[in-house]
């Protein structure tokens, strides 16, 4: 408690000093013009006005990307054109990101950091401002386990680096901000069905409604069921049933989403549950046993209120949040594993423009009512029965100052405090410089802090030693430079370079006896250069391509595992036949990577081809995608809990979808 008080006092001192100085920075400035005056501005003057919320129609926009970071935006149109089915599919094709799948969960690596079985705890995923990362693993669900169906997504903003003070826990390497559609965008009624390889079926129905008086409602329900591969071969288990896992790849999920906007209020409720059979005999379970399942349930309900008061935008939000995980592990006998987290929380932020400053101040609070983890033979014989509760508090301030018409400084600080782990404050600093011709140069320095999660701290079984008091938080410091430019009429290019250092990286290591232990594994560093270009032609042709050259190493390991040195992406879409038919390809290149033990996994190209047909006369959309069109054979490295060093991924598969609006 005393440490918290000290920290709170320091934070308040800093905040007070900053707020006291901010108005002084105005000096002899003119007053902020009344909104009416903007109307009289000429076209030239309008071109000079700096705007806040930039993207699309979202009136109650969540924290928009004011950070001088490198941001990628993926639209609903992209998702349909390239046949992406989950958030993992989308992130695979984002510059500098790579995704691995161990036939249970999907994991994302950012800038060559992709630690084995980290449950994506270093990437913050938000859906309409709600934190998707749970309170046990701080994990983000990206594959079919993800909380929303992609058909309700309006756009996804991927913000690299810990660049913005607005985002806290888990905003370590990147923030993925998923924004869902409004009722007005969905249309009255829509039903879609999809069939794909391995007996996969998906049915989705949504309903949207809106009127002219600021009311908007949207519902969506999805059911997905896949039998998965009938037979999977794992040479490491060749002595059991010939190494064949039969019918052990099944995947089912149900997702529900409802949101309503009523004037200044916005309500949302999400429910998602997913169950997967696991064929890989990970954690030393019996190979070929059909009782190996994991299930994840994620749900929340939130209410938000946004209001303009005298030129300031006040945004407030409250929510209840639920996460449940269960796993049936076929050891002899069957073991059950699970966790449960319930929380309530809220946040308030105020955004105000004072002369050349745009100041955002916010406070977030979260009470974790329950953070339970258990493991054992059955409910009465639990060898782990950890039940905790905790609370979190965060405050942040961010100021964007127009130092000159071309140069903007963005200064922020964030203070996070956890009742179980203490707290710290971290700065975020950036500068953006605009040259005459559509060119922006951004320099960023950011620091972020990741406290070990409940799983790393308190979960201890025969397999995993408790981290407890020996685990210290990780700290990341990133220095980044980004240049963005339009060349000529049709081409947009960007180049960025970064140097990211993590101290105290929390990694699992093997201990004698075959168990795992989480330790602060020295320091790690990732450096890289990324290039991206996009071009659009009058015919409708769109080509986007990127290359990332990156390297992640630690003091003792020259090349971290799961750290591909080069990543390339290519997306191209070409419309035909009066734009009724669009042919598109989404191709990625991943260079060789090391598996956990240093074994080398070869490089691969992966190409998906999608055709989308939208006839002018009927309100239907027909889509067909061939995934891994050239049947590449490739594997993803897996964590230390596997006997295998890597798991082979699917060969060529296909999907056909039809959606009807009526």
């Amino acid at each position, binding site marked *: 408690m005393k440490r918290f008080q000290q920290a709170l006092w320091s934070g308040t001192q800093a905040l007070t000093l900053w707020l006291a100085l901010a108005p002084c920075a105005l000096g002899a400035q003119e007053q902020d013009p009344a909104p009416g005056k903007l109307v009289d501005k000429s076209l030239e003057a309008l071109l000079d006005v*700096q705007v806040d919320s930039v993207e699309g129609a979202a009136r109650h926009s969540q924290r928009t990307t004011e950070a001088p970071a490198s941001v990628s935006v993926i639209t609903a149109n992209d998702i349909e054109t390239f046949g992406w089915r989950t958030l993992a599919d989308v992130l695979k094709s984002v510059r500098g990101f790579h995704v691995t799948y161990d036939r249970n969960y999907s994991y994302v690596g950012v800038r060559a950091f992709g630690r084995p079985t980290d449950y994506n705890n270093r990437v913050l995923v938000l859906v309409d401002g709600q934190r998707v990362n749970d309170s046990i693993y701080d994990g983000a669900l990206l594959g079919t386990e993800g909380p929303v169906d992609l058909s309700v997504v309006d756009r996804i903003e991927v913000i690299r680096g810990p660049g913005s003070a607005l985002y806290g826990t888990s905003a370590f390497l990147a923030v993925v901000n998923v924004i869902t559609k409004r009722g007005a965008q969905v249309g009255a009624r829509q039903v879609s069905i999809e069939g794909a390889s391995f007996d996969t079926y998906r049915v989705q129905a949504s309903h949207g409604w809106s009127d002219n008086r600021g009311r908007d409602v949207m519902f969506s329900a999805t059911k997905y069921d896949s039998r998965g591969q009938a037979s999977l071969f794992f040479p490491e288990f060749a002595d059991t049933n010939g190494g064949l896992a039969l019918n052990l790849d099944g995947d089912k999920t149900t997702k529900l989403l409802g949101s309503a906007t009523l004037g200044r209020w916005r309500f949302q409720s999400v429910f998602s549950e997913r169950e997967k059979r696991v064929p890989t005999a990970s954690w030393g379970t019996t190979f070929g046993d059909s009782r190996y399942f994991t299930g994840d349930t994620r749900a929340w309900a939130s209410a938000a209120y946004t209001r303009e008061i005298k030129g300031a935008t006040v945004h407030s939000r409250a929510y209840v949040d639920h996460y449940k995980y269960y796993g049936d592990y076929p050891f002899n006998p069957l073991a059950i594993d699970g966790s449960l987290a319930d929380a309530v929380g809220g946040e308030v932020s105020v955004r105000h423009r004072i002369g050349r400053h745009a100041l955002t101040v916010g406070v977030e609070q979260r009470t974790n009512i329950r953070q339970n983890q258990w493991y054992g033979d059955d409910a009465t014989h639990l060898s782990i029965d950890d039940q905790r509760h905790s609370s979190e508090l965060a405050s942040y301030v961010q100021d964007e100052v127009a130092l000159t018409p071309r140069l903007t400084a963005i200064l922020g600080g964030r203070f996070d405090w956890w009742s179980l782990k203490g707290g710290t404050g971290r700065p975020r600093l950036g500068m953006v410089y605009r040259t005459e011709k559509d060119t922006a140069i951004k320099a960023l320095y950011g620091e972020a802090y990741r406290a070990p999660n409940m799983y790393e701290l308190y979960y201890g079984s025969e397999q995993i030693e408790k981290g407890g008091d020996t685990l210290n938080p990780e700290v990341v410091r990133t220095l980044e430079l980004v240049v963005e430019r339009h060349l000529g009429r049709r081409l947009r290019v960007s180049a960025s370079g970064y140097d990211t250092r993590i101290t105290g990286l929390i990694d699992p290591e093997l201990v004698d006896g075959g168990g795992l232990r989480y330790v602060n594994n020295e320091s790690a560093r990732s450096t890289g250069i990324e290039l991206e270009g996009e071009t659009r032609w009058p015919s409708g042709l769109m080509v986007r391509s990127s290359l990332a050259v990156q390297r992640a190493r630690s003091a003792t390991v020259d090349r971290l595992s799961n750290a591909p040195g080069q990543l390339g992406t290519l997306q191209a879409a070409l419309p035909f036949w009066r734009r009724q038919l669009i042919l598109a390809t989404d191709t990625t290149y991943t260079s060789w990577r090391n598996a956990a033990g240093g074994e080398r996994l070869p490089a691969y190209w992966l190409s998906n081809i999608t055709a989308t047909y939208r006839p002018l006369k009927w309100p239907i959309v027909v889509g067909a995608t061939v995934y891994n069109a050239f049947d590449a054979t490739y594997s993803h490295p897996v964590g230390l809990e596997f006997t295998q060093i890597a798991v082979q991924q699917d060969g060529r598969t296909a999907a056909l979808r039809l959606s009807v609006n009526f």
Partner: protein
Amino acid sequence: MHLHGPSGIPLVRRRACWLAFIGLAVGLLAPHVSAAEAPHEDGRRVKALFVVNFLSFTGWPPSKLGPAPARLVIAVVGDPDFAALITAVAAGRDVAGHPIVVKAVQAPEGALDAHLVFIAGSQARNVPSILRALAGAEVLTVGDTDGFAQEGVAINLYTFDSRVRIEVNSTAAARAGLRLSANLMRLARVVE
């Protein structure tokens, strides 16, 4: 868990001091830099102002727009909120004696009598059919979605680093029988 940095000063206090120092530095620096004031505004409002402004920079054939006080009609397809915003912004204004009228429509057929049609992002997949429906109606098409200008919308608003900018498809404007003022073309990126 210890929160002391390498120098032994409690980490929190060190960071807070640093933050305060930066604040002080910027606070002192800012007044010394002579700069025009650059206020921040709501992006949608600025776009609404652009749309109204475009009326002053476009010439319609006399068959389409008679002499004042003939009304100038703006139709917004697919975004009733934005139509309301344009109405608010255009209140009390006129263009060379022509009053401004704004309406929200669901389908392009309802916009054939308009002089300027704003196509909202929600209509992205219908752009070709909307443009076909408006062909021959001598209408200035305006949008604010990536790729619209390339698809044939005459003026598209895009945002580049917190500022709203204009890109123009002059072929599309010419095909619609409209004349775009040189003062507008000078400020825009010409896509076609």
